[in-house]
């Protein structure tokens, strides 16, 4: 009995000692993760550079994006001069040497080659998030929702079916598939399960165009990692797309607004949106109060990790608030989809804002509250929808010290009244 007690004490002492030793030494040995853009052995333009810089030497690996099975590449080098890194990467095709120079841009530490072809970065105040380590970052392409998939040339239908059976939560995920009409050369958006989309895409795998689909916001990372590990996919990533208008509209706030005990709380998310929407709809910039009406909200939870939520509601708001145009009531469908995006820091959480079916009704002197749908007979343009999206994103982010992102590409920026 005595021996058992002694052993237990010894174990506790050893564990405490090891912990103290690690606290002292581990930070010095800890690798730092950077997002690397440039040639790498994977099918993606981006990779993860995990390096340790100590005593003038650099060691580490160039790893593929999360979920991709490409073997890591050994990285070594020197940091003999402050702000200069000489790295050697041992690709299977042969070693490559680069010289990177350091620069600080906004909240990022960047290392770039003289030709600016290769570079890597990290945030200096927070580690890269899991989505950042999973997805490629495109200058103009999607930052969420829209995925592109290419199937492996040697994949079989049996392998695909086996994967779909192995991952039922992914198979049943509702997505929106862009189906190409060969004759008209136009895409039609079809809502169906991911399994149906993958089967359809697999049949057309010989075509050069990748399979494009819209996954629920927040679920993209899980879906892409699963697909990359499926064995039938050559490439799955955010859509590299092209520059277009209003492709990005979201706001970012501190995680504490949506998280409870370390995990996402649907109740807190609903409460946050409920309260903020009332605040948005009742007062304009000149602090004048307006009538408003909020329809029945619909909150849905996506059934794959991290189980993100989306909140959809019909809103009736004065145009002085939405578009800063006097004399109208605006009605629109607003959806708020919470998720971690590639540019959110670990302390933040993003909410994608989408405004659809924007209609307007001339305000009557005889009524101080928005009328019913029968009065909303005039459809507004995409430009107006963009205006409302920006106004809402701006309000929701500014109120709680966050930030909003709204891509005005394709729209006349100088005409926008609400700009993030």
């Amino acid at each position: 009995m005595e021996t058992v007690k002694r052993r237990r004490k010894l174990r506790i002492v050893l564990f405490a000692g090891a912990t103290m030793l690690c606290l002292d030494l581990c930070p010095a040995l800890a690798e730092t993760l950077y997002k690397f853009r440039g040639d790498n052995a994977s099918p993606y333009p981006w990779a993860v550079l995990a390096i340790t810089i100590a005593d003038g030497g650099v060691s580490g690996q160039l790893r593929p994006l999360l979920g991709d099975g490409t073997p890591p590449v050994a990285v070594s080098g020197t940091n003999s001069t402050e702000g200069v890194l000489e790295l050697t990467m041992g690709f299977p095709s042969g070693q490559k040497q680069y010289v990177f120079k350091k620069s600080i841009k906004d909240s990022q530490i960047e290392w770039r080659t003289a030709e600016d072809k290769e570079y890597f970065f990290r945030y200096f105040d927070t580690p890269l998030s899991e989505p950042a380590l999973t997805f490629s970052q495109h200058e103009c392409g999607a930052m969420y929702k829209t995925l592109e998939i290419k199937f492996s040339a040697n994949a079989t239908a049996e392998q695909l079916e086996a994967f779909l059976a192995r991952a039922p939560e992914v198979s049943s995920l509702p997505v929106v598939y862009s189906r190409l009409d060969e004759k008209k050369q136009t895409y039609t958006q079809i809502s169906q399960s991911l399994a149906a989309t993958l089967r359809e895409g697999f049949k057309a795998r010989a075509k050069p165009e990748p399979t494009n689909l819209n996954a629920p916001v927040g679920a993209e990372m899980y879906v892409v990692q699963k697909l990359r590990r499926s064995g039938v996919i050559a490439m799955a990533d955010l859509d590299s797309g092209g520059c277009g208008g209003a492709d990005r509209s979201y706001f970012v706030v501190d995680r504490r607004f949506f998280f409870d005990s370390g995990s996402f709380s649907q109740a807190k998310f609903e409460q946050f949106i409920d309260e903020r929407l009332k605040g948005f709809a009742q007062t304009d910039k000149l602090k004048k109060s307006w009538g408003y009406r909020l329809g029945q909200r619909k909150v849905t939870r996506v059934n794959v990790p991290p189980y993100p939520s989306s909140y959809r509601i019909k809103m009736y708001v004065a145009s002085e608030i939405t578009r800063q145009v006097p004399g109208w009531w605006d009605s629109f469908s607003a959806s708020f989809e919470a998720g971690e995006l590639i540019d959110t820091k670990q302390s933040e959480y993003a909410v994608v804002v989408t405004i659809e079916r924007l209609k307007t009704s001339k305000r009557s002197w005889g009524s101080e509250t928005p009328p019913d749908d029968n009065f909303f007979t005039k459809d507004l343009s995409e430009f107006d929808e963009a205006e409302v999206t920006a106004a809402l994103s701006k309000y929701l982010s500014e109120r709680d010290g966050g930030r909003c992102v709204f891509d005005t590409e394709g729209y006349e920026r100088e005409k926008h009244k609400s700009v993030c």
Partner: protein
Amino acid sequence: MYQGQVRILVAVIILGGHFLVFFAGLLLGIFGPLLGSDAVQTVLMASPILGVTATSALMFALRGETEIAQGSKVTTLFGFVTVFFPTALILCVFIVFYAVYKQVSGFGPDQMKIALGAIETFFGVFLGAISETLFGKRASPAVTP
């Protein structure tokens, strides 16, 4: 009540009502929820029956340059019917306008046009008959030159 009095009363109601409906329709476009095209459509839809009757009433008024004959005494039913239908038509149009102005639920511009169409159809027959009786050719001799 005499024929002449009824004619004058109904002519005033119809001419005044027609003017007010036209004016109110335009105001609905300025202060109400109707857009320009909706306001014009509203005026056009609310006008035909009242307009035709008003034209007859106007012709009657123009014919009576010096005096309008008093005529014989009419029954209470005649007086009631000839005054009630034009008044009811104008009131119905104004109720519809008011509902749109106050943006009553279920009463948007499209519903308003349907309601105006129904009112015009319903009252059209009655006002046609009244117009013919009061301001038609047979009524002309009652006007003293």
